[in-house]
């Protein structure tokens, strides 16, 4: 990681700046406002994805893709500080947002951590070029926060595995290429000891992709039904029945998201959805900026955003230097969830009666009500804040673990209540 071994940070930054200005279009502030809004048709979305693949290819060809991936796998072998500099320069420009999560992190990151040499060569360059879009086949219907309780079954058949089960909350599986799948390979041992991880193409016979309609009309999330899907053993990641070792790291990468050195994302853009600037716009366009009560809320939103960003920065540094354990990522996840729901609520409060009913002329106020309905997505998606609080109390503060009734019994004997 010494500066001598790699391009100097300042030189890199200047090169990045000039390349970004020459090649990437500027985007308007507030263009991505709102909470998972349903702003485009399917055709438009597919066009956007095609465009983002091109952008990723552009980055790759210019030597700006996978800055922290090894050169052997198509990356640049640079330091997290380079990625940070690139992200800072990227602010205000278009970028291949759909290629970042979950494709590059956690999926590519997990392949880098656990893949064989062949697997890494087969997929990492393809991902960094924008050729492969990946999804997480992780959550299951009825599984909730207990991802290690996966019930998707993988049964060995010679050199292959046969998978059956269902996965859910895969963002955009309908336009993605590959899935990273956690499945149960052993039902006779406690739940964490009978899992394995597989890679599989999404669009194949045996996988039915169904789109889920969210309450605001978005159909971004999918559910997949897998029936006798055959996966060669060479597409298994990590050891048989030791998939939880992969899973822990997988979820670490997921929690890191905006702190990840692998992810390209404009600095300051970590809080997609409703940020302090949306709040300010709502207040201004409501004509309420002269009201001290409204200004109090505007100030609170900005305070929370600055604090949340400062925390992410502190955690990133702390984990990088080893002063903090990797589990500390849960602290950032908790605060960003809380800040996001609070900021959403502040915008809703300021919008006042117009959040119940509005017209197309209402500018920034438009959809404040719908966004409020979707508020909890920030404390559910990507691991609930309840799970984050468990992790912080148990793993960071070392408090006694919750009693579980599924730890020392064979998975098939675990109590499952009404839905099993």
């Amino acid at each position: 990681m010494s500066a001598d071994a790699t391009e100097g940070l300042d030189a890199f930054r200047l090169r990045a700046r000039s390349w970004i200005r020459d090649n990437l279009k500027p985007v308007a502030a507030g263009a991505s406002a709102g909470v998972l809004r349903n702003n485009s048709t399917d055709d438009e979305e597919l066009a956007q994805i095609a465009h983002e693949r091109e952008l990723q290819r552009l980055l790759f060809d210019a030597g700006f893709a996978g800055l922290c991936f090894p050169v052997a796998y198509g990356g640049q072998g640079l330091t997290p500080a380079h990625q940070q500099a690139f992200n800072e320069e990227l602010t205000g420009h278009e970028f291949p947002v759909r290629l970042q999560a979950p494709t590059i992190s956690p999926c590519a990151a997990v392949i880098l951590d656990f893949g064989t040499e062949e697997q890494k060569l087969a997929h990492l360059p393809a991902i960094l070029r924008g050729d492969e879009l990946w999804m997480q086949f992780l959550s299951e219907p009825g599984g909730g926060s207990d991802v290690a309780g996966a019930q998707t079954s993988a049964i060995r058949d010679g050199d292959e595995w046969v998978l059956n089960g269902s996965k859910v909350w895969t963002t955009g599986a309908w336009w993605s290429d590959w899935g990273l799948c956690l499945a149960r390979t052993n039902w006779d041992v406690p739940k964490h000891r009978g899992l394995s991880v597989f890679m599989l193409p999404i669009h194949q016979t045996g996988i039915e992709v169904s789109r889920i309609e969210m309450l605001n009309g978005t159909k971004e999330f999918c559910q997949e039904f897998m029936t006798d899907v055959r996966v060669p053993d060479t597409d298994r990641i990590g050891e048989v029945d030791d998939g939880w070792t992969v899973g822990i790291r997988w979820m670490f990468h997921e929690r890191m998201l905006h702190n990840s050195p692998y992810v390209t994302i404009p600095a300051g853009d970590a809080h997609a959805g409703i940020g302090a600037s949306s709040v300010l716009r709502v207040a201004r366009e409501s004509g309420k900026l002269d009201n001290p009560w409204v200004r109090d809320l505007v100030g609170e939103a900005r305070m929370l955003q600055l604090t949340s960003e400062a925390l992410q920065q502190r955690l990133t540094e702390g984990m990088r230097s080893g002063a903090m354990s990797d589990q500390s990522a849960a602290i950032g996840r908790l605060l960003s969830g809380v800040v996001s729901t609070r900021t959403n609520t502040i915008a809703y409060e300021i919008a006042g009666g117009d959040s119940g009913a509005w017209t197309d002329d209402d500018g920034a106020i438009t959809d404040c009500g719908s966004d409020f309905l979707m508020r909890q997505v920030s404390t559910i998606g990507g691991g609930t804040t309840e799970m984050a609080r468990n992790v912080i109390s148990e793993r960071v503060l070392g408090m006694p673990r919750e009693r579980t009734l599924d730890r020392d019994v064979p998975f098939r004997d675990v109590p499952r209540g009404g839905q099993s």
Partner: protein
Amino acid sequence: MLLNLTSDQEFFRDTTAKFLNEHAAPTEIRRLRDEPDGFVAEYWQRGAELGWTSLLVDEVHGGGSISGSGLLDLALVADEFGRHAAPGPLVPTNIVAGAISELSPDRHARVLSELLAGTSVASWCHLEPRPHDGLDDLVLDVRVDGSDLVLNGTKRPVESAGRASHLLVTGRTGGGFTQVLVAADTTGITVRPMHTIDITRRFSEVTFRDVRVPADAVLGEVAGADAQVERQFQQALVMANAETVGAMEFALGMTLEWAFDRYSFGRPLASYQELKHRFADMKTWLEAGHAISDLAAEAVSAGSGEAGELVSAAKAFLGQYGPELLQDCVQMHGGIGLTFEHDIHLFLRRVALDRSLHGTPAQHRQRIASIAMDVGKAA
């Protein structure tokens, strides 16, 4: 109220509940998102037959109450509407029918009888768009011009205006309020649909440009309707509050059931202390919501001097804790609670809608503070 129903009230309530179970099930509500008016005509007529539209109307004009207080009976209906996130223009139709019954039942007998029969609906044009969106900041101009009145101004959000045969318009003539009942197709009226968070309720922005009506369109006195407007406003608040409490109660029950059924890490969700304590908070908000909503309804019904403060306190409390309770119910459900196919959002929408209509919690807190300051000054 919930604690002390007479058997007649229980029966009345059960009848509405049964009807809604049958005709306002969640699948039907989801279907209605594509229905232009958000409800079908027959549904509303049958509801009217059950008494939904007649409770604020005098017996001599075809109405009548169950308990002697039509408003408290209506609150029972509103509570059931909340428990079902039910469709239909309950608030505006009752407000308009009640006002006609009180002020000019004979002159508007035909309109009243259609409202009572559920064959037509009416809207109340009350609050106004920014920057005049304060609770008392109504500027729609009602000008006297010879024997006519001329209306100019804009109202929003107006519930069911796209479907209404008549509009009750609250405007200002000099220093006082004037209320006018006008046919929705009168020249100069523009009805422009709005977006809303609810699935079955519809709202519009209604613009009045030189709308000319004869003097006998006035309900009550020109420039003398202030007390009547306040009364209508309080009645609307009572209905909105009862509806919110009903939705909170149903959503909490549904979520509690989920917590018992749903296992995580080998244990039911209901066994996790942190969730238990959140359920305790929610139960407390619910019971407190019942308490203040009922107390306020009784005060409004009795015309008590404390009615204004109590009903605003109820609106402010429910507008704050209602949406928070519903959001926590969503959180307990996890991802599926955010899907269109799940039922919980139907109640979240209704509670969030009722929070936004008839003044937000923040606006009602200002109103409460003004009342407290006046009382404090007098003391």
